[in-house]
């Protein structure tokens, strides 16, 4: 609870800093603030060994919410570190940007710790609205406008469906409280209205995690938004949406899940296939990662298909591996694209010779995303697959394995470009803040891969 309160306060503080003309210190201040909040958040670990409700169950703090909050805050810290250079030429607006990023984090935190449908909806909205603005924040770039507009239109439509679904569930259950709903519906079969409500909530969430066939917004929005915002969407927003998805369904909709299992399996399969096979043909790195993000959503949905005790560990580990690898990949892409003036894959040509460290880091990130041992991404896939097999979803796992093989093709396209193609581009400087983020992420990916024990059995 205090995590959420302090983070919101930090966001407000950023806006106030603008008024008191403290622009220079607002970035270090917010990074330091988030670090403190990270520590405070971790102190909530294992309190009372279970669910800890606040405000009449609006927020329920448990280990699940604590670890996911920790991960999201960590990712936000990385984003803030990157933003120092990213917004170098827009100093007059920096506190607004920072405030929006921190509010995005607030929404994300609400999404991993809600205990009530209202809080869940608030979380989604706070997260989305900040992102709508951020997506369109490059004022002179038409594509950024397009991204913001598209995201807003599609997103608000999804929010409408979500609200409709919540209303139907409320109408049947008579309460917004998740634990009460779960208690009322654990024994008896859900009615048809309840099921429809759950279905609509599911559709909205599938939209938010960009699962096929609700994924059409994602590539354009990812591509058009400023890269830093794309990073925020691909990591913080996606992980938060997934954590919320899992939390909601494991907490109170477990009984209505069987009714949708066929549809959900189909959507999962479609998401993996569409994401992977469309990524094959992309020549823009950002779009490629957008589609790869869609396929990763598919892998994570396998975990939601098999809701059971161990699965939340798998979801968390996957989010951790995916988040860190994605940030590392996008950061390198950002540096390269800035210097080449394009985010086509050709921009990476010869990077292996020009910047061996950077190329090495990107290679590791790509290997991890492709799921090659001993990097974190491999264990992430492993946990998801083994949970699914345990729950009897062998077919979908075989499909996922085939998809992983396909995915290697496009991840290696970048590695090829870096090491085997020549380029006459000049050697460039990397800002220390970028280098710092890339190094830390890559080291973490390696460490988490070699010592998965520390992270895989947390929950």
């Amino acid at each position, binding site marked *: 609870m205090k995590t959420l309160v302090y983070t919101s306060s930090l966001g407000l503080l950023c806006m106030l800093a603008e008024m008191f003309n403290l622009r220079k210190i607002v970035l270090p201040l917010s990074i330091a603030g988030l670090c403190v909040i990270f520590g405070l958040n971790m102190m909530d670990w294992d309190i009372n060994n279970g669910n800890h409700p606040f405000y009449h169950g609006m927020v329920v703090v448990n280990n699940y919410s604590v670890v996911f909050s920790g991960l999201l805050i960590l990712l936000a810290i990385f984003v803030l570190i990157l933003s120092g250079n990213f917004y170098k030429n827009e100093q007059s607006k920096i506190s607004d940007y920072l405030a929006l990023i921190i509010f995005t984090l607030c929404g994300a935190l609400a999404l991993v710790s809600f205990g009530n449908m209202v809080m869940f909806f608030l979380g989604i909205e706070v997260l989305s609205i900040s992102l709508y603005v951020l997506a369109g924040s490059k004022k002179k770039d038409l594509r950024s406008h397009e991204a913001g507009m598209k995201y807003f239109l599609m997103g608000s439509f999804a929010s409408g469906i979500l609200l409709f679904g919540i209303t139907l569930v409320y109408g049947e259950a008579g309460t917004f409280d998740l634990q009460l709903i779960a208690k009322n519906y654990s024994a008896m079969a859900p009615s048809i209205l309840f099921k429809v409500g759950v279905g609509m909530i599911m559709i909205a969430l599938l939209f938010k995690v960009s699962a096929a066939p609700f994924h059409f917004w994602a590539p354009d929005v990812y591509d058009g938004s400023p890269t830093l915002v794309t990073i925020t969407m691909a990591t913080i927003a996606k992980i938060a949406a997934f954590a919320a998805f899992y939390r909601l369904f494991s907490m109170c909709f477990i009984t209505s899940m069987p009714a949708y299992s066929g549809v959900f399996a189909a959507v999962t399969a479609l998401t993996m296939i569409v994401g992977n096979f469309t990524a094959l043909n992309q020549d823009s790195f950002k779009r490629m990662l957008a589609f790869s993000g869609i396929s990763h959503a598919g892998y994570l949905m396998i975990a939601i298909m098999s809701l059971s005790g*161990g699965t939340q*560990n798998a979801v968390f580990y996957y989010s951790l591996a995916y988040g860190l690898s994605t940030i590392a990949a996008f950061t390198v892409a950002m540096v390269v694209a800035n210097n080449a003036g394009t985010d086509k894959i050709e921009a990476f040509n010869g990077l*292996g010779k020009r910047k061996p460290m950077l190329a090495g880091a990107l290679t590791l990130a790509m*290997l991890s995303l492709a799921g*090659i*041992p*001993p990097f974190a991404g*491999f264990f992430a896939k*492993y*946990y998801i*697959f*083994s949970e699914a*097999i*345990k729950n009897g979803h062998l077919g979908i*796992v*075989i499909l996922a*394995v085939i998809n*992983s*093989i396909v995915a*290697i*093709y496009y991840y*290696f396209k970048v590695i*090829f470009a870096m*090491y*085997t193609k020549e380029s006459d581009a000049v050697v460039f400087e990397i800002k220390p803040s970028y280098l710092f983020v890339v190094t830390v992420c890559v080291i973490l990916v390696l460490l988490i891969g070699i010592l*998965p*024990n520390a992270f*895989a*059995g947390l929950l």
Partner: protein
Amino acid sequence: MFETGLLFFVFFFPLVAAALVYLAGHKQAKYVAATAAVIEFIASVMLKKCIAASHAGVIEFTHSWIDKPNISFALSVDGLSFILVVLTTFLVPLIVISTFRKEIDNAKGFYALILLMQFALIGVFIAADAFLFYIFWELALIPIYFIALLWGEGRDREFRNRAIFKFFLYTLGGSLFMLLGFIWLYQKAGSFNIHALYNLQLNAAEQVWVFLAIFVAFAVKIPIVPFHTWQPETYKEAPTAGTMLLAGIMLKMGLYGLLRWLLPIVPHGVMVCTPYVIVLAVIGVVYGSVIAIRQNDLKKLLAYSSLAHVGLIAAGIFTLTREGLEGSVVQMVSHGINVIALFFAAEIIFQRTGTFEIAKLGGIRNVAPKFSTCFMIVVLAAVGLPLTNSFIGEFLLLFGIYEYNTVLSIIAGTTIILGAVYMFRMYQNVALGETNSLTSTFEDLNWSEMAVFVPVIVAIFVIGVYPGPILHMVQPALDNILNYVWR
């Protein structure tokens, strides 16, 4: 205590050495790498004493690594693992020394990757936990992928990229199914430990499915027809040192995997599938030999001959007879040693004449007698002449296949004739006849090249004359495997 320490040294030293090589810089890299590889060889040979002293002939080490799922850091070295570890540590220094005359750009990266590869290979051969085995199996792929891709010799860059990528995709794709198989086994056994998997009771249908899943990974790596299409192109495009690693050691991973991780775990699945697999393997033998006859490219000829040889080894393993298994181990060692020397000879020819084309060569014997003699001995060993190492291996393998099925053994036996045809034809065209403009300036072997050929030739004759120690060494391990197969 000493034995665990030595085991750890043998296991981790290549990794440390890889880091040292990288730090040593471009100029010193090759010397550091060669020294480290020789030290590693000596250390690994010392393991023999420890195995002899230990009870049951196995050195084991187990430490918990990941609790959930239950994965342990379990290493074990028995006779079979020992033979393959020593094969690796014997060949890696030779591979390193074989590159001494060559100018290699970014040398520190190259040699560090070779040693990293050695680390992964040794890991594969001594892992006693299926998951650990899988990790090293995949880890071995990364260095060889970069070695082949970055230092490759193919003229056409695009073609090389595609060939190497095909190799990567095939092997990784195959091994993902192996991972599925292992996960399935884990769900049944609750552990990845090799003993737990050996004692698992699975029903017949499950065994067949698990067999197929795991077999794909090994079949791609070995390679068994029809999973071999990556092989000739990759051998051709990779730098010769990379080809040596691939043909000499890496494909033994697949054969070792069959012995250690497939036969004893799903014996019933093996029984059901054996007839088909043996036929495939024998088809590979004939197919590889026939195509090799028609090759004009030295490296491709060797690639196809390698395909024929490993096909015979795989067939021997699937006879599930004692002779077949023994032969397979001896032949793994022999093939590893011979193929490295053959590829090295091809590399020497290429360095001096600038071509791999057999038709353009000739008369090397007139100008380079030392080289031609060494080459001759290796060729004789490769066709399995008595007193050379391959003779023992091929004899045992064919005997095993004969026990299984007479007709198959006759078909597989043609490999000896066909092998003699393409090998002697190649030697004739390369070393005998008129010296032409390309070969007239052929320089004879220098010291670093002798340093590769001499140990190889010694090994060829020692194993050929007295294979007893190898057979003695692997016997308990093979007996153990056969006990589980015929349980």
